[in-house]
């Protein structure tokens, strides 16, 4: 039996999650969507193995960095999705251990390549 790689996606916007699930699902990934940091934390506790996390920071405050720190400690790779180009976000993201900061709208192909490289590592 082949286990599908599990991607956790944090996003305020339900429709964004649906689209992510559809697109990544087609590529053979299992996607679990969460709407806020507490839900993310409980999912991290619950799941046995999380291959990576997509953190869309739009709509969240600074406390989001706590969640990032937790991922870094657990050595779960993650990407930060941001609505704008912001140097603060990019710097802070790197400090918190993000493997990349992407600005929306994303390009599907690029995202898939990034995910693949992170998971294959």
């Amino acid at each position, binding site marked *: 039996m082949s286990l599908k790689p599990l991607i956790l996606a944090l*996003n305020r*916007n*339900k*429709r*964004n999650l649906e*689209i*992510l699930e559809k*697109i990544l699902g087609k590529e053979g990934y299992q996607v679990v969507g969460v709407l806020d940091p507490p839900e993310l934390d409980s999912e991290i506790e619950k799941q046995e193995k999380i291959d990576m996390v997509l953190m*869309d920071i*739009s709509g969240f405050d600074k406390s989001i960095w706590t969640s990032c720190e937790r991922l870094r400690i657990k050595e779960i790779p993650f990407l930060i*999705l941001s*609505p704008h180009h912001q140097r603060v976000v990019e710097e802070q993201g790197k400090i918190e251990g993000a493997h990349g900061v992407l600005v*929306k*709208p*994303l*390009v*599907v192909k690029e995202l898939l390549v990034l995910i693949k490289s992170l998971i294959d590592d």
Partner: protein
Amino acid sequence: MSNDKEKLSSGISGLDEILMGGFVPNRSYLLRGMPGTGKTALGMHFLSEGVKNNEKVLFINMGEPTDQIIDNAQKMGFNVDNIDFLDLSPDESFFSKMEAYDIFSPAEVERESTTSEIIEKIESLNPQRVFLDPITQFRYLSTDEFQFRKQALSFLRFLTDKGATVLFTSEFSAHDPDDDLQFMSDGIINLDFFSEGRSISVSKFRGSGFRFGTHSMRITPDGVKVYPRLRPMLKEKEFKHETISSGVPEMDELLHGGIERGTATIISGPSGVGKTTIGIQFMKEAAGRGERSVVYTFEESLESLINRCESINIPVKSMINTGMLEVVPVEPLRYSPEEFAQLVREEVDSNESKIVMIDSTSGYTLSLRGEDPVRHLHSLTKYMTRSGVTVILINEVENITGGLKVTEIGISYLADNIIFLRYFEMNAEMRKAIGVLKKRLSDFEKGLREITITKYGIRVGQPLKNIRGILNGSPERVNKEDSD
């Protein structure tokens, strides 16, 4: 024109004429126009024509919702029963269901579903005709111009490869030019709307000739009508070059037999001198031979014309009743020159009318919308004379006497024959003279004759001899000795 049979009719006869038979199949055509220029109506004609021929037709609507299109089409009398619709217009859930997302651009998310929907439909229906309204919607589903161009091109190719002939519309503005679409289409039809009326023109048509220039278009309750600009060259009918008599022997003498078939004659003169009467006199004689004539009257009403002619022994009423004469009053500003030409052409072609009179040329230039009606009058006259129709143009000049001037609007070059009428004063009495100024196909009498219009008809006298100065309105007698 052997490939005419292979062409696809557009469903509008005038447009087919401009396209020299119709669309070349398996190609894609761009229909350009501002909002309200009739793009969708033209597309409906295109699809309905396919339905008539038992073809499968598909309407891909990306702007207006289907029920709205159906409603509008039915109001114009189209039968939409056998037209397939693929509705890709945004529906109300676009807003209400909070479907907004920002993680990917719409181009990435929607394109796939839109494309697959179209492909599925095309493969299941296999339509021969597709109308895509408007293709510019694809622009929003493309990340950039290059992508749009590539996608539109491959999409059109996909449709034509499947055996469809495609008509697609574009919405354009100075901000959003559609040059790229113009390059990738096999033909371009432009629709325009001016204060003088609608127009249609073709600016590209691969694989076939087409009629250049701007043609007139009208959207009527029965659909779109196109009136191609007349081209006299198109037609040259065989006809007998003979002289037709006026029925007044003295007038025939003046004209050395009458006027020739297939020529244009200007009858020029001041108001009330009898120009129309002389024209009708030729028609009375034609009716006697069993030939039909038509008068387009821009000024006089039908009743007044009938009464006037009846009172001078020209039986207009019975001529009309037997179908030998048709009097068509033309309302001011009702027609564009192309539409009027079409009207005349139908009359000449289908009713075999032999004499056509336009009463008057100044009425024509004033009543028809648009620019340069004189040029249109020229091509209309040429068209008719080449088909053997005798054309009579009535021209009113403003001077009552004197100041000889043939026409007011510079149309004398149109005429093969010019007959002129003048008042002159003799012993404190207004009298009328008739003369011929020009006759291309035969000689003519150079002298003037007196003409009177009586209750028995037109009377033309013997040549006015020993009088000079008639043309300047105050003649004097010449003694025989002086003139010798």
